[in-house]
């Protein structure tokens, strides 16, 4: 499945006479930058409800990044499960645990500087390695389509697929048991 959504979009852009590589690259960097900004909002905002909304937007931008990686199915799954279900669950949990949205409550503990230093050190280490490594150039037209993923799930990865359903069932039952009000 070589013609991903991004490629079709870039064809449309090409019809209007714009340089398509430039438009695709610029939109990738805008979406990636937005993802980083919203991720920073998740970890830095004081009102935790705003953090949840920022998390939803960040996950939406990450779904956009998946489109640039020719993973349309995963982008849709990301929006459905993360933005649709998990963030909704977070918002419910925030509403069920009272008065933590208050701005006057400190949201960060006393290890802010140490944590920031550790995170920055790990990030610079990663970037150092990523820039230094000899990556291959992109192998064209090799992204798997939905059909390939479905076939792989049903043949080569059938056992982990069934284990996932077992994990989801266990999580369902466990959530009900833990969350139940004991008489």
């Amino acid at each position: 499945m070589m013609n991903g959504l991004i490629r079709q979009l870039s064809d449309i852009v090409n019809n209007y006479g714009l340089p398509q590589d430039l438009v695709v690259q610029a939109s990738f960097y805008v979406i990636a930058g937005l993802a980083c900004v919203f991720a920073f909002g998740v970890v830095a905002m004081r009102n935790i409800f705003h953090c949840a909304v920022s998390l939803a937007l960040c996950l939406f931008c990450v779904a956009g990044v998946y489109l640039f990686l020719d993973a349309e199915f995963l982008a849709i799954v990301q929006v459905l499960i993360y933005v649709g279900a998990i963030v909704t669950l977070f918002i419910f949990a925030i509403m069920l645990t009272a008065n933590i949205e208050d701005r006057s409550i400190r949201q960060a503990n006393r290890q802010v500087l140490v944590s920031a230093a550790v995170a920055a050190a790990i990030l610079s280490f990663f970037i150092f390695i990523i820039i230094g490594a000899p990556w291959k150039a992109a192998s064209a037209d090799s992204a798997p389509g939905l059909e390939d993923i479905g076939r792989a799930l049903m043949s080569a990865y059938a056992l982990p697929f069934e284990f996932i359903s077992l994990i989801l069932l266990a999580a369902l039952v466990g959530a009900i048991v833990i969350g139940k009000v004991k008489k």
Partner: protein
Amino acid sequence: MIPQSHFLILGAVLFAMGLYGALTRRTAIGILMSIELILNAANINLITFNKFIGNETLGQVFALFVIAIAAASAVIGLVLVIAVYRNMKTIFTEKMNILKW
């Protein structure tokens, strides 16, 4: 096209932000949100390597598994937060210390 390293750097940035949030948040819900960020960074890396290494489906399939496990872990984590809140009337992690003496 966009080089592979830029996707990997995006994943590293999201991971670092999630790590910072998981280390500094006082509320358990904030820590869970940061963990979701870290899982997303892992997913970006999986799908990037899947695209750039060749004709494979393994990366996308495992990204799907990661999304499913993230959903399960978010459910269990939030239910634990609600159960702790019901018993101790707090979700601040430094107050949850009845297991240590």
